[in-house]
């Protein structure tokens, strides 16, 4: 039971004198010294119990050890723990879920428990409110954490990609201008094809984020180039079939250099570490807009070839499979503007979806209906 510290709330048995011992324990001075569970002491108790994993897991012995309070005996702890457990019983369920809030919740509940039974109904409503609020709060926390975790994972993937990039680049013999593009995949015979195929296609239109920051290797500078170049890629054949018919890989290499929406949580292209799945997409879209502006200078000239050639290496082409299954052609199908818009819409969808989610959280609604 939880008693306030004030002497006035003492039990009638006791004389109104409380003595504070050396250990900080407040003992009454009657013949049978009874331990007064003060606020602080109780809080320490609760802390210890939580640390041990909850009232069911904690034992008096372990609590005693953890609390480290001199003069506290097993007997004290046993009875207190038992009362604590009983007090917690009806609320056990949601306490399990949230460790961090349990302390606060616990003390609230204990207070309520000590209220008279006529307050029960009020107590239940209060509990529900508290519960609901707690869940909301928790959900927001989860959301935040999820985002951070996804980013962390992305960063780690980045290191893998970079390492792989270097490894693979070292294997291939790149006779290309050292534009810091590491060569990946075999470009050998493809280069002429690539440039030829590329020339087939028209001027750079809007590309969209698929090409953006593949960032498989290379630094920021390349990123921008990629953007610029890839804008050239965008407008290609008018349909997926066009791709298929192309027959040789080259063109496809050109295409999908970039990543699609949730892309490497790279700091290359968009410079922020935000959740790749959401915000970076929008960010990239803006960037591409900017890059496209810069791309206008790109025409069918030699420079293009360079770019093209540069891009080709990014395709991690399987040398054993001439058909194309390389990263580059993955994102191929962004050729038409029409499709791009559709894709843009899709890109945005995640972000749009997020917004409603967040607000709906507070409205206790929500697509994911977290309450059940």
């Amino acid at each position, binding site marked *: 039971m939880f008693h306030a510290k004030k002497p006035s709330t003492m039990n009638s048995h006791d004389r109104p004198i409380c003595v504070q011992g050396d250990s900080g324990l407040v003992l009454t001075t009657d013949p049978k010294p009874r331990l007064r569970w003060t606020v602080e002491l109780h809080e320490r108790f609760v802390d210890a119990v*939580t640390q*041990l994993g909850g009232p069911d*897991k904690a034992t008096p*012995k*372990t609590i005693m050890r953890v609390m480290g309070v001199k003069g506290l005996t097993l007997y004290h702890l046993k009875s207190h723990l038992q009362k604590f457990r009983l007090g917690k019983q009806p609320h056990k369920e*949601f306490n*399990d*879920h*949230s*460790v*961090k809030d349990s302390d606060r919740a616990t003390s609230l509940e204990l207070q309520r428990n000590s209220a008279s039974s006529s307050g029960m109904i009020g107590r239940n409503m209060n509990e529900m409110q508290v519960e609901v609020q707690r869940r909301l709060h*928790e*959900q927001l*926390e*989860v959301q935040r*954490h*999820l985002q*951070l*975790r996804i*980013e*962390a*994972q992305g*960063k*780690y*993937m980045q*290191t*893998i*990609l970079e*390492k792989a990039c270097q490894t*693979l680049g070292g294997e291939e013999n790149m006779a290309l201008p050292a534009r810091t593009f590491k060569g*990946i995949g075999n470009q050998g015979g493809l280069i002429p094809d690539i440039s030829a195929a590329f020339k087939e296609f028209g001027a750079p239109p809007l590309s969209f984020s698929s090409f953006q920051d593949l960032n498989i290797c290379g630094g920021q500078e390349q990123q921008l180039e990629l953007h610029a170049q890839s804008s050239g890629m965008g407008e290609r054949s008018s349909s*997926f079939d066009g791709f*298929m018919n192309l027959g040789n890989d080259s063109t*496809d290499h050109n295409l*999908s250099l970039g*990543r*699609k*929406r*949730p*892309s490497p949580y790279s700091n290359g292209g968009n410079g922020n570490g935000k959740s790749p799945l959401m915000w970076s997409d929008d960010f990239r879209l803006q960037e591409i807009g900017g890059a496209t502006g810069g791309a206008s200078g790109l025409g069918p000239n030699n420079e293009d070839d360079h770019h093209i050639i540069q891009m080709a290496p990014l395709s*991690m*082409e*399987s*040398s*054993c*499979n001439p058909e194309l*299954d*390389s*990263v580059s052609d*993955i*994102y*191929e*199908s962004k050729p038409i503007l029409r499709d791009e818009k*559709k894709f843009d819409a899709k890109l945005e969808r995640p972000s749009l*979806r*997020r917004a409603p*989610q967040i607000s709906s959280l507070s409205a206790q609604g929500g*697509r*994911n209906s*977290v309450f059940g």
Partner: protein
Amino acid sequence: MAMMVDETIPDFDCYGSLTTSINTTTTTTTTTTTSSSEDDHSCTWNDWWPVVDWDDFTGGDNFQDLIESMIQGNNSSSGNYLYNSISSEDDSGGMMEEEYPEDSNNNNQSEDINGLKLVHLLMAAAEALTGVNKSRELARVILVRLKDLASPNGATNMERLAAHFTEALQALLDGAASGTLHAKHMFSPNYKDEQHQGDVLAAFQLLQDMSPFVKFGHFTANQAILESVAHDKRVHIVDYDIMEGIQWASLMQALVSRKYGPPTPHLRITALSRSGSGRRSFGTVQETGRRLTAFAASIGQPFSFHHCRLDSDETFKPTNLKLVRGEALIINCMLHLLHFSYRASNSVASFLSGSKTLNPRLVTLVEEEVRPIGEEEGFVGRFMDTLHHYSALYDSLEAGFPLQIRARALVERVFLGPRITGSLARIYRTHGNDEICSWGEWLGDVGFLESNISFANHCQAKLLLGLFNDGYRVEEIGTNKLVLGWKSRRLLSASIWTTTDTDL
């Protein structure tokens, strides 16, 4: 993908009880053709030649129409029962339904019919391979036909899926013919070795982005771990199959930024490595260790990495582990994530039972969720179930990335194809009787206790799925398991277990 429904069966679970209806149809077909004399479809297999008259084979049924309709590009001509039954379906599992509006229904249907045809053929091939009227020749012929119709770079999911299944069946046929089933076909690892590293890397990145499978498994396990070690100062994780160590990046981040309990605990990870020729994705366990160490250093996570070798037969010896007093021991077992190699049952069993002797604080298990199949269904039943499983997978990838067919084809080729081959080989070898269907069940049987999935964990899973397509679902099964599914098909499950607690 839409499937044909027998008229007598009103509705069904798209990925589930298909077997019955199709069984009837196909069996009829098969019987017709293999029963030699009496009927007019005198398809005498004894003197067949490679160029088969398909009319005879199919018993003169609608395939002709289907082929025509495919050529014509719409199916308006075949006003047959197939059309009716497809259009009368109202379930939402159709492969195309999400992406195509009402007016391109025609395209839908012809694609559906083609898909159906492929399924029929696959089923027939499976039957021919192992069914009552076993016939290698028949199987061979059917596979030839399938290869004509389906290519791994096909435009539709069903086509590519069928192509992979065809390959797998072909491997079985060859293996069976020569009397040996190569280990190569049983365990997908070797397939991947043959693939260009760049491909694998690319495919993995794509897989990560296209679907929540990887993240779901990792994050659910990590959240459970975080909660379990909330008050610990030292954490030791034994990872059965660390691969690239990606799971631990986000765990480290979470540990570093935790607010309650002792500040960032020391994390120790022991990775198991196999001396056999497992698939080495892009690096060895040691490289993974180096990478993790570097990452941990970059975010300020106290970390150390250890390496524990499994014996050549993959038995796990707990004594090989270095344990430290006072640390919280976690066993992490990721199986069947799409980019993982298959691990043999005895290896997994040895690991898990060995772990039990160490009394770990927590065991996190992620595995494929497979529908248990009755014995009487045998190979064909499992085959069809596998087909459904992968078709759900394909669909889920498509829904996320409807236009990036090449991208998906790559993922399918690099990861899913080999898995399909491996799965089928295993099913074939065990004649459809499962060795172990669910490791979770096994853990329960062996004496592990279920440990609750918290609200936060479930919530996280839901939020994660929300970032992807609507078709993904997460269900909580029992108290300790979350299952990720696509539409009505369960695909991957994450469960947490613990051993009996000693008095802390």
